[in-house]
């Protein structure tokens, strides 16, 4: 079972996130960057499948140089190797072009049976890259999995959304995305952290991956941000201390606002 895990480095949600004034892209320098939490779970799921069925886990990441930290984290958890698509021309790439580029990179990994991604990232929240990667590859999409099972040459998941829980099945190769509820990711051990330093990370430029620079970046984007501005933070209103009348006070406030 050869598994590719798609991982993304994102600004830490605890730090302030901004857009650059110059071109309205995410200001990646202004915030601490971390391996997206959901991708730790994607790596964990891949490792569990490898432990049960054998094979190899390859981490694939598209992002700037410093995304190496996120890749090392995934390797220290136990992934075997990594491919990092890194090129200055990728700056500003939109979601469909990201999916096309990731599909190209997946194509450089030999004999892939399964791609595992997070269901949505905490920065873009497109929640659609895994589905779009499946579209480009022409592979079945089994997304928003709270449970994944492999049986011979087929994969079965439980997809949990607002609409309820669906059981979804397909033949391999396939693209799976996992939700927060899938597992608890392991902590990298000291041994794992040391071993990760020696694991192979192939860095690809656009040319290496066979991607034309005109297909990506701000120039290649099929949508453009034309304006952006921070919203003035919401102001605090009234704060009172409950002295036995707190509930009544709220009701009076709501009535005054015509909310009752």
């Amino acid at each position: 079972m050869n598994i590719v895990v798609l991982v993304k480095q994102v600004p830490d949600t605890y730090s302030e996130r901004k857009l650059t004034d110059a071109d309205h892209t995410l200001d990646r320098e202004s915030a601490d960057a971390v391996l997206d939490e959901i991708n730790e779970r994607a790596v964990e799921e891949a490792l569990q499948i490898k432990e049960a069925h054998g094979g190899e886990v390859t981490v694939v990441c598209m992002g700037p140089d410093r995304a190496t930290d996120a890749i090392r984290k995934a390797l220290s958890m136990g992934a075997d190797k990594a491919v990092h698509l890194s090129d200055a021309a990728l700056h500003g790439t939109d979601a469909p072009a990201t999916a096309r580029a990731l599909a190209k990179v997946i194509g450089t990994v030999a004999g892939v049976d399964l791609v595992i991604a997070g269901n949505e990232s905490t920065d873009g929240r497109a929640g659609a890259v895994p589905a779009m990667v499946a579209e480009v590859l022409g592979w079945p999409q089994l997304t928003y999995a709270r449970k994944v099972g492999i049986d011979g040459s087929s994969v079965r998941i439980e997809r949990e959304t607002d609409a309820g829980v669906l059981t979804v099945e397909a033949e391999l190769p396939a693209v799976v995305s996992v939700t927060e509820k899938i597992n608890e990711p392991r902590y990298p051990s000291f041994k794992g952290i040391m071993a990760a330093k020696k694991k192979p990370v192939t860095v690809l430029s656009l040319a290496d991956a066979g991607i034309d620079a005109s297909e990506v970046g701000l120039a290649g984007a099929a949508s453009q941000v034309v304006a952006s501005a921070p919203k003035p933070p919401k102001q605090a209103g009234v704060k009172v201390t409950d002295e036995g009348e707190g509930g009544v006070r709220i009701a009076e406030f709501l009535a005054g606002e015509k909310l009752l």
Partner: protein
Amino acid sequence: MAEVLVLVDHVDGEVKKVTFELLTVARRLGEPSAVVVGEPGTSEKLTAALGAYGAAKVYAAESAQAVQFLVTPQVDVLAGLVQRVSPAAVLVPASIDGKEIAGRLAVRTGSGLLSEVVDIDGEGGGSHSLFGGAYDATAKVVRGTPVVTVLPGAVEAEQAAGAAAVEQVEVPAATGARITGRQPAEAGDRPELTEASVVVSGGRGVGSAENFAVVEKLADSLGAAVGASRAAVDSGFYPHQFQVGQTGKTVSPQLYIALGISGAIQHRAGMQTSKTIVAVNKDPEAPIFEIADYGVVGDLFKVAPQLTDEITKRKG
């Protein structure tokens, strides 16, 4: 006038409210055509409602297979229509399914994608609210047919008469991942979280699953949906689908009441665009008070039941 395709969100033979919002927005860009993908006989039940919100046409794409495959039948049908009628735009609800459908459609048709917009102007510029409402941005599609997902509850649905002329379209033979089992979510008596005009949420401070009855009682007195913080969900107090925040639902109701929630940045990301925010927390330093229009420093087990009684009294 160019057509604007609107993918219809429907469940149990009823049109979901977000569809009416999409039809309302679609009228700014052209003539709305509703696209129904479902089992044979589905569109018949939906046509009148779609017409009441201005659908000039209803494309009925019906087959047994349409509900047996994940997402791909909708993509196939929309892609076929995009090619045939060259619409001014395709509008899809920003639900989980909708975002995946829209993403695949954009890839297949070589088009630009605008995700989770809260409004669209007549020129097709979509407004976004980023990082949980900390930023506003406007984006435009510059290539192909704009494919836009619109957040539920972001625009007010307005009725308008439409002819709702039904046209059958074929559902291409499906491929992809097959749906082999289905446990629909229990509808319950409360409004849906993302559609509700009032949301009452509980956090870790609620303390237990049993204690969530305090949150539910207040919600029911207001006809509200119930939400929860991730800490409350992770502690097993309330089911996951009710989580509000960055990795849960984004809600933007008229009124949001937070009980025993500290107001961590990731929770605020899912609720800070609410019109009015009320918070009850026993810690006067809790960050939720920074964004609350009305905050009460106190014990939620004293304040919330009193508020419930007071509301019941005023309404009764």
